């Protein structure tokens, strides 16, 4: 055990820090759940890509730097510390790409990854259906083989970023006689195909952060299949593992929130200390953000030595989603009557946009598998308790 950085790692940190200092937009970009904001974030992805920073863990041939996970953590630390924009293509870069690397053909990798890294293709995900939320194996959307195409009919929902995204990855039932997690196939498709209708779903803040997608005889070439026909469940599970796990919520993001929360508390502590629960929560926020960071470094080191991510991905999901809620609720307690004001309200003396984060934090315990599902997984797979 050695908890210090190598000279190379320190240089890497210096390099990304300098680049970010020169390139991070000075103004916060508009939300990527608006059309204008989406395009601004797409341009930022392109800028990142020009500096070869959009997917640092990928091989160089696809636009990455072949970084290991420790370097990735360093990248993320500098990225969030610099106040750089949210990643509009995180579904693609962090969720789909690792699956593509594992299950994709060389042709598929060459076709999809460089455009993804460059921000040319922004990806949405198509898991959930109206009757298949937490219970993903209840998927009913069909893909019927017709020559060298699949013909897709059905409906997806809660499709993040799908309103303005270019491509979708998702799971469809290719064997109509199958049930549950058998007979599903993982398919990639452009969202501008004939027969696709996208209905935006407005989220709490009123912006269409996700969408319903309707498929009416949508023809997708068979070459767009990822992995074998009928093997979609295991391909998807690899993605779900990554999603819950390391990449989706890097610790630096929470550390930055904790740091901002400490600063907010310090500015107002004379007034705020009348409610002792606030200082308690501020200290807990810092401690838990550190804990999450340490646990992630440990996982990264273990993965670097060949270990696999198991049910600890489920513990991650619970931990960061509760931490994120705690921090934003605490910030709202400090803001008091200013908490409810939208960013454009002129009366607020606060510059940070805590409200946005507070709203977003509400979704944490739900998406990527509700925390109840995660607790079931922990109880049954880590602890070995009997299924109900």
């Amino acid at each position, binding site marked *: 055990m050695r908890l210090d950085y190598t000279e190379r790692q320190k240089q890497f940190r210096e390099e990304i820090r300098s680049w970010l200092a020169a390139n991070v937009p000075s103004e916060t970009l508009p939300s990527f759940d608006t059309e204008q904001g989406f395009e601004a974030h797409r341009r930022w992805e392109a800028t990142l890509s020009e500096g070869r920073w959009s997917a640092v863990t990928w091989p160089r041939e696809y636009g990455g730097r072949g970084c290991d996970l420790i370097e990735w953590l360093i990248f993320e630390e500098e990225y969030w510390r610099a106040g750089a924009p949210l990643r509009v293509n995180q579904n693609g870069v962090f969720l789909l790409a690792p699956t593509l690397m594992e299950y994709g053909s060389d042709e598929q990798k060459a076709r999809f990854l460089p455009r993804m890294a460059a921000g040319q293709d922004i990806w949405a995900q198509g898991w*959930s259906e109206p*009757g298949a*939320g*937490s*219970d993903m194996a*209840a998927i009913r959307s069909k893909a019927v083989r017709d020559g060298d195409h699949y013909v897709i009919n059905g409906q997806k*929902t*809660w499709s993040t970023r799908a309103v303005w995204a270019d491509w979708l990855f998702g799971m469809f039932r290719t064997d109509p006689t199958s049930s549950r997690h058998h007979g599903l196939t993982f398919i990639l498709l452009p969202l501008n195909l004939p027969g696709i209708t996208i209905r935006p*779903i*407005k*989220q*709490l*803040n*009123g912006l269409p952060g996700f969408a319903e997608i309707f498929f009416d005889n949508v023809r997708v070439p068979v070459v767009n299949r990822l992995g074998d026909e009928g093997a979609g469940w295991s391909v998807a599970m690899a993605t779900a593992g990554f999603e819950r796990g390391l990449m989706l919520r890097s610790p630096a993001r929470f550390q930055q929130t904790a740091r901002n929360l400490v600063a907010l508390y310090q500015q107002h502590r004379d*007034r*705020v200390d*009348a*409610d002792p*629960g*606030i200082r308690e929560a501020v200290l807990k926020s810092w401690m838990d953000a550190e804990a999450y960071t340490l646990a992630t470094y440990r996982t990264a080191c273990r993965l670097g030595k060949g270990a696999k991510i198991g049910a600890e991905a489920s513990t991650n999901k619970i931990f960061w989603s509760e931490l994120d*809620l705690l921090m934003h*609720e605490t910030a*709202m*307690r400090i*803001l*008091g*009557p*200013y*908490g*409810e*004001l*939208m960013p*454009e*309200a*002129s*009366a*607020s003396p606060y510059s940070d946009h805590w*409200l946005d984060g507070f*709203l977003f934090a*509400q*979704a944490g*315990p*739900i*998406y990527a598998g*509700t*925390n*109840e599902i995660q*607790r079931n997984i922990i109880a049954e797979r880590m602890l070995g308790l009997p299924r109900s």
Partner: protein
Amino acid sequence: MDFTFDDQQLAFRDAIHKFLMVEAAPEMLREIWETTASGRSAELRAKLADQGLTALSVPEEFGGIGVGDLDWVLVQQELGYFAIPDSLTDSAYLAAHLLNQLPADVTLKREWLPRLAAGKARIAVGHPVNPLVADAALADLLLLWRDDEVHAVTRDQVKLTFNPSIDLSRRLYAVEWSASPATRICPAKLGRTLWADVLDRAALAASAQLLGLAQRMLDLGVDHAAQRKQFGKPVGSFQAVKHHLADVAVKIEFAEPIVHRAACALADNDPQRAVHVSHAKLAAGDAARLAGRKSIQAHGAMGYTWEADLQMYLKRAWALDSAWGDNIFHKSRIDAAVLDQAAAIGPGCTFSSRRA
């Protein structure tokens, strides 16, 4: 010792509930909030007046009903349950009380109280605990604080800047205005007491509304969980979801008597009323926050959408939790009362501030 409401109070509450169920359905509120600039409906206000709501605090001599905080508190729970915006409470409860308590200047009372009772006037109230004034743009009159004095100004005497809230039911304004002897309707010495009463009465109203909001969010969560199926059975048959919602029921069950006691303390002018009101605000806020969190969870992804009605009640609960004194303000009043060395606390002190 009788900690129950009388039949008339309960019957009035039930009538208001039935009325609002029809007249303030979520889809109607959405339409008013989202499509009108003021976010308010004169038509709904007229109907509320027909129900007698605007006349409750107006004395009979001015055309009102002249009942008190105990009648209001049950109504406020309903106003919360149906997310009725601030203007009604600010006009018919806070402003009416404030005007009632003014010294003999009958002119002002005679001018405004009958109109209030008839639902024909809106009065906004600006207290320094709130940085902004709710529904100021629609107000015919504004009662404003300045160095503990009470001032009355009309809408043409103020400059307003709209400050949007996440809660579409809220219309908050920064108010610029000039105080003058002509606008002053009460000097600071009496004003201090009146403003303290406004604050306590407003915080009580917010507490009762938060309770109502908590109950609404619980009901929405229960409805959704009973209908929505996953893994072949209703989400609400899973023990984890059941226990989330049961915890909310417990919170509400134990917050409600605190709110009712605070109402009684205000009605009786109990010397401990400020502490009781702060306790009510904290407990009701806790219940509403937990109800919001657990109802989102019972809703799953639907709980995070604009289209599910939950969001309307959720945001109003978040806003009211910090209105009329945030948690810091109210906890500091509890702190002072409980940790004071001379405080009479413990068994036997609940209903008597001094032990006999």
